[in-house]
């Protein structure tokens, strides 16, 4: 899918979410589902394979999200599956997050954490990153166990890395550089 079309999808979803008056929730749910889609190869293949009947793919989405996501989010995902665009959800979701953040005069910070964060931790983290970057940030958090521990945040071109994995990587580079 071209960037223009992704942007058009993101704009349409943004309009729907705005009309629903639940833009943060819909945007957050779509982002969370896109992360799940990126992590699970099986889910990605099942939903993006057009040879599987639409009803079956639709049922998978309903089974996964019917009690966890809002009706608007569910409707958007079902629409993307039926249009054969579900594989573009990660990009559309990011574009939507940017639009939402822009509307709120914020910037999106993509946070990856080794463990899930509590609301209080999220609040502290948001405040700290807001102060560090001198911007109002909308955090999009993903749990990534491969980081081993710690957090990394990407705001635009800036990466603030505090993960155990990156520290070990630096240690490896130092060891190899000494040779």
């Amino acid at each position, binding site marked *: 899918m071209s960037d223009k079309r992704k942007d058009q999808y993101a704009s349409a979803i943004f309009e729907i979410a705005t009309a629903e008056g639940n833009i943060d929730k819909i945007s957050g749910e779509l982002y969370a589902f896109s992360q799940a889609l990126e992590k699970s190869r099986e889910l990605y293949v099942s939903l993006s394979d057009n040879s599987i009947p639409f009803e079956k793919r639709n049922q998978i989405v309903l089974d996964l999200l019917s009690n966890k996501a809002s009706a608007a989010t569910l409707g958007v995902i079902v629409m993307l599956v039926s249009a054969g665009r579900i594989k573009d959800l990660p990009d559309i979701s990011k574009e939507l997050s940017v639009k939402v953040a822009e509307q709120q005069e914020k910037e999106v910070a993509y946070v990856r*954490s*080794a*463990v899930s*964060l509590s609301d209080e*931790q999220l609040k*502290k*983290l948001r405040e*700290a*990153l807001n*102060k*560090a970057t*001198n911007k109002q940030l909308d955090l999009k958090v993903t749990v990534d166990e491969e980081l*081993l*521990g*710690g*957090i990394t945040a990407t705001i635009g071109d800036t990466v*603030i890395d*505090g993960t*155990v*994995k990156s520290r*070990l990587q630096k*240690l*490896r580079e130092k*060891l*190899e550089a*000494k*040779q």
Partner: protein
Amino acid sequence: MRAFNAATIFAAEAPNGNFLPGDINEFYWGSAAFLVVVAFLLWKVRPSIVKMFKKSNEQTKNEVEWAQNAADDAQCEFSEFKSKLGDISSEREQILTEARESAQNLEEELKQKAHQDAEEVKTRFSHDTELSRVQAQNEVKQQLARVALTAAENIVADSLDEKTHDQLLDDYISSNLKKANN
């Protein structure tokens, strides 16, 4: 004397008692005839014989002269040949000397080349050996680093409990706050 005595005896024994046998007139006529023959021969044959001798003499003289000339030529050629032989000998010596010098130079060049090649091979071998040693060392170090890092990752992953995760998050937040304050 003995011959005179023998002739006297021979004459005494002859039928006419003379020294010459037979009639004395025969002797005169015979002698006259002989003289006539001799005179005839001297008159007719002698010039031819003299001419023949002269011719023969001339021919012999020419032949002697030719032989003399041939001998002189031969002598000249011999001298020339000898001289050439001398030149050849000297040239041969020169060629031999040059050949010896060339051979010595070639030998020196070959020795130097062999020495240089040996040095190059030695240097290359030494360089390759050093390179291999460094590579092996680096590979071992990288391997050790990988093993150490993998072990460290495993240890860290096992030792990271909820409290440590919270601590890491707090460190991250405080580090960002410090940056903001600075």
